[in-house]
């Protein structure tokens, strides 16, 4: 159906690859959707969990995560999926508004590193509490 012409900006190779101008095809889009679907129940659980532990002191808070492995797992999932969703979303925002190539790249790298570092910190914190250190 697609023939190579002056109007068509894709090379025959890029058409064969079928990954579009972003070079990643639908991968980014799919990851944002997948994480969004997961975050619907996780977010609702998270809000209820936070409300249930408002004003809790340290002993009460840590007792919650030690006593409920399910809560610890859900909290780890919430943090992990949230930060995966966050880095993907921030990437698009930076791509849309930052037009100097090196600044765009630096911004994306910084945001992705920060998101995964924060995710690791959150997950480690939950594990540390849960395993009762």
């Amino acid at each position, binding site marked *: 159906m697609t023939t190579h012409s002056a109007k068509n900006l894709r090379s025959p190779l890029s058409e064969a690859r079928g990954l579009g101008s972003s070079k990643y095809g639908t991968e980014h889009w799919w990851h944002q959707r997948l994480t969004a679907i997961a975050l619907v129940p996780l977010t609702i659980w998270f809000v209820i969990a936070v409300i*249930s532990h408002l004003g*809790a002191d340290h002993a009460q808070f840590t007792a919650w995560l030690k006593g409920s492995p399910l809560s610890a797992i859900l909290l780890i999932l919430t943090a992990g999926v949230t930060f995966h969703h*966050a880095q993907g979303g921030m990437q698009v925002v930076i791509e849309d508004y930052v037009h100097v190539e090196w600044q765009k790249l630096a911004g994306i790298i910084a945001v992705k590193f920060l998101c995964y570092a*924060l995710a690791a*910190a*959150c997950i480690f914190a939950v594990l540390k509490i849960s395993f009762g250190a």
Partner: protein
Amino acid sequence: MANGSSRPLSPHLQVYRFQWTMALSITHRITGVGLVLGTLLLTWWLVAAAAGPEAFAKAQKFIGSGMGLLLLFGWTWALFYHLGNGIRHLVWDAGYALDLKNAELGAYIVAGASLGLTILAWIVGLAVW
């Protein structure tokens, strides 16, 4: 075309007539970026809990302060808005409600639900605090 190719360029923002759907669209982005900032507080909260009673008390004190409550209120609304509008996006992705009438109806539902759920969460939250 000024972009040096035959690709069409999007016209400048000023030529569009204001519509509520576009306000919701940019608000989705703004709340998304705002929520990323909010994850800093979430990380502080969890890491403080893992660090010990003193660090956790400090984090809880900040959250309970005027500034903390104001931020938390904003993040509550941003979270419900992004959640609601995110579901609206998923409905579109499934191929439904793409016409103007339903796009606008969805906009009203998301705006109303985000405010309603925020108020509900805070009523419950302050009651159990």
